[in-house]
């Protein structure tokens, strides 16, 4: 692949991020002016910071790859990732801020007054955090392997070690301005190449994304297969390929159809895989539920709301986040679509997650422009790996140090960071074959079936009891966790069980809600005595409070 600019770009981004975290803001914020020093962060900055932390490379690399592979079916991923903030805005943002809770376990303790429930919530926060860190490290490994030709473990190790060391030593500890900078960096890194790509597509005479007689190779291409697949050649023959096989295609030769991928124009353009029937519809609904309701359960997103001075600011922040994230997710879609034209070989190799980083060079050629833009995209992806991972790691480590180790000292936090960092790195080294988006989706599903019911019912229903909340989290979240474990470790399934396990949200979320409500009604006597005061605290407008 040999783009000599990529590695320097990645190193530069890493160094800049670390340096800003350690020194930049420390100097910039020292002042003798109280007005400057005690200026509350504006919703716009805060929203950019949330965006910076939330937009994980795993999600945008994965989204582009999925669109390349499956077509419009998976547009629900980017839509859901952005629309999750709508649910957050409507149901959670302002009351949660008014409650004064910093983390989800805090909210449990405040609303239901139960230490045991707090412990349960802590376990889930850690699990979701790790499950969400896993695809970040995995994505880093893949990206570095694709761009610099290094073995897969190197990228995962590099990001894991850099982030763990950085958080443990106190740099980049959730500094709002650093994270806000990361958002704009990511947006630039994806938007500028996207503009060039669109222009190139214009200049090439707007080739059709789905030509009626199938995609063709635009240049002579040699493909090294990485995943076992069955190819259907244009003349109707089938051929089974194994990892390591090399295939050569001449310019203009049609792309062979690959099993398990949306191939023909109609397949790619229309929702619902032909043949899967209701299962495809079920998976779609599952995905919508998971992404819409899972965002509110992500530990690193919720802690950011604490920075807002009051509930109204929290709501405004969420609105801006919705806009920022919405704009951003247009870009991976463009990459996925153009990838169909310029990098069809990825369909054969199975490395669709690499489409974003490979596309600039493939479309614009290996000239300076192409290489520069490729380096820019790689830098953006790395910025995303670093910012999301460190945000996640900070919140997981915070929860571990206060709730598991039980002390708030600096040393305790460092120890917790190392613990929180080692586990996902080890996991990432052992699972390399999964779609990163699938793992991201699973993290959302677990969050949606454990914390979403807890937050929504806790905020809007007086009748929720600690026993009900615990039962709902255990049953709903437990079912989602079991699905995750079966997906990651268990045997391959087919038919309905596969659909139910791969996209569990459509049954686990209603299950969690039902169990929570039913058990709460059965244990009505356990409702906290000061529920009226708590509800007033959550819902009274900010103006009434002072």
């Amino acid at each position, binding site marked *: 692949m040999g783009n000599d600019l990529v590695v320097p770009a990645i190193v530069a981004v890493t160094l800049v991020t670390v340096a800003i975290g350690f020194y930049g803001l*420390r100097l910039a*914020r*020292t*002042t*003798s*002016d*109280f*007005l400057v*020093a*005690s*200026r*509350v*962060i504006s919703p716009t900055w805060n929203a950019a910071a949330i965006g910076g932390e939330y937009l994980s490379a795993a999600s945008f690399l994965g989204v582009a790859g999925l669109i390349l592979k499956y077509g419009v079916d998976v547009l629900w991923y980017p839509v859901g990732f952005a629309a999750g903030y709508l649910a957050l805005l409507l149901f959670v943002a302002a009351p949660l801020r008014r409650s*004064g*809770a*910093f*983390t989800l376990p*805090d909210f449990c*303790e*405040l609303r239901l*007054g139960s230490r045991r429930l707090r412990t349960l919530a802590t376990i889930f926060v850690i699990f979701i955090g790790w499950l969400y860190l896993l695809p970040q490290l995995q994505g880093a490994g893949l990206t570095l392997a694709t761009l610099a030709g290094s073995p897969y473990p190197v990228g995962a190790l590099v990001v894991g070690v850099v982030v763990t060391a950085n958080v443990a030593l106190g740099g980049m*500890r*959730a*500094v*709002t301005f650093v994270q806000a900078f990361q958002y704009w960096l990511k947006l630039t890194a994806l938007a500028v190449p996207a503009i060039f790509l669109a222009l190139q597509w214009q200049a090439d005479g707007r080739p059709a994304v789905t030509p009626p007689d199938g995609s063709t190779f635009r240049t002579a291409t040699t493909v090294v297969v990485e995943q076992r697949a069955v190819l259907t050649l244009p003349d109707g023959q089938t051929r089974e390929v194994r990892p390591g096989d090399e295939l050569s295609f001449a310019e203009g030769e049609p792309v062979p159809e690959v099993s398990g991928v949306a191939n023909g124009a109609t397949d790619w353009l229309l929702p619902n895989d032909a043949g899967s029937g209701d299962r495809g519809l079920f998976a779609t609904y599952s995905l919508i539920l998971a992404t819409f309701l899972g965002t509110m359960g992500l530990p690193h997103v919720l802690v950011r709301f*604490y*920075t*807002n*001075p009051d509930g109204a600011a929290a709501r405004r922040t969420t609105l801006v986040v919705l806009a920022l994230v919405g704009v951003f997710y247009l870009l991976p879609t463009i990459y996925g679509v153009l990838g169909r034209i310029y990098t069809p070989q990825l369909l054969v190799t199975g490395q669709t997650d690499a489409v974003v980083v490979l596309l600039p060079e493939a479309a614009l050629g290996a000239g300076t422009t192409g290489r520069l833009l490729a380096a820019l995209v790689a830098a953006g992806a790395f910025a995303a790996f670093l910012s999301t991972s460190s945000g996640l790691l*900070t919140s997981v*480590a*915070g*929860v571990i*140090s*206060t709730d598991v180790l039980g*002390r*708030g000292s*600096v040393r305790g*936090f460092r120890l917790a960071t190392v613990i929180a960092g080692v586990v996902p790195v080890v996991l990432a080294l052992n699972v390399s074959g999964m779609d990163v988006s699938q793992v991201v989706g699973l993290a959302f599903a677990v969050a949606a079936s454990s914390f979403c019911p807890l937050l929504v019912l806790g905020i809007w229903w007086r009748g929720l009891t600690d026993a009900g909340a615990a039962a709902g989290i255990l049953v709903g979240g437990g079912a989602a966790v079991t699905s995750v*474990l079966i997906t990651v*470790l*268990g*045997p391959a399934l087919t038919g309905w069980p596969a659909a139910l396990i791969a996209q569990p949200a459509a049954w686990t979320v209603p299950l969690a809600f039902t169990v929570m409500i039913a058990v709460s009604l059965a244990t009505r006597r356990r409702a906290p*005595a000061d529920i009226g005061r708590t509800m007033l*605290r959550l819902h009274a407008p900010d103006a009434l*409070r*002072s």
Partner: protein
Amino acid sequence: MGGNVSAVIGVFSLVSVLAGALFAVGRLRGRRGIATPGQRATYEVLHTAGLAAEPLRAGLNPADAAKAARHLRTLVGAAGLALTDTDDLVALDGRGAHHREQLRTAARRVIASERSTVLGEAELTCNRIDCPVRGAVVAPLGGASGRIAGALVAVTDGAPAPGLVQATLETAHWAGSQVALAELDSSRERLARAEVRALRAQISPHFIYNALTAIGSFVRTDPERARELILEFAEFTRYSFRAHGEFTTLAEELRSIDRYLTIERARFGDRLQVRLQIAPEVLPVTLPFLCLQPLVENAVRHGLSRKPGTGIVSIEARDAGAECHITVEDDGVGMDPATLTAGIAELAGSTGDPGDDPGQHVGLSNVDERLRSVFGDGFGLVVETGVGLGTKVSMRVPKFHPGVRAGS
């Protein structure tokens, strides 16, 4: 694939081993042979008492008293059990609901006389044929303090046996001490609130005098500035004498410190330098009202008043995960750590007269005590100082603590 299968087998074997261990432990605990009957009796009594203690510690309100009455009835072994406060029945568990009125009068009598009594069938007449109530034992709930908080009534379906009377008396005594502990808790809270009020009253004397003199010096030379200073002073006192709320946010506390420093700058001019480093993420942190300002006041007094030349006061608030770390530092004369600890120890013994000059100790130890009483003993002040080395006071504030809320 092979790796996956072995991983699945590994997980399943781990889970089954765990389940087996849990089952074995359950069986062992369930087996009677392991504890002697005496040990089991002790365990059961103490366990039931423990269950009753928790609601009792919350005070004699209907919801908690109902929970406590259930366990107390098991403890006494009576057919029914009622708890009263000084005025009325607050909870009744088991039999005897239709004797409520008679029990209430008896309880009032017991509370007035502070002596327990046994009611026979004659005092518990009723017109129900199937009434099982034959007697009752009424004992006052007296704590160690001697004040009677209520009464405990045990209702029996036979003539009250001496064993029941004894058990009731002992249980009432024990429950009384738990209720007294509840009062102790609430009086500790009241004390903490009183301390906040005391601190409010305490800032003033030196500072008000100094501020007014400083403003006075500007009235002729720079009336505009004098006017601004008076307004700042008014705002400052409004915040400091605020009547409501035990907690405030770091942002508000900083705003008040700014006003304070504006007034002090009028007095010291360029001699007073302030350096700030505040992480904006921690501005919404909730902390006890007026727990930072006394530290700044101290720093100004130490850093400037007793030494020539300029003094630098730095205030730093850092974001540290689930906590916020605040330090206030001056480069003034400092003090001998031994004097400081001695001063604080002395204060703990005496009532502490805020008028005296060791006021600085009062400020520090007051803040220290309030932080500990709100957040727990791990969150006290840390003072680093030495003669001639300046003073650095640090505190840690958790971002969330149940029961702590701004503006309440």
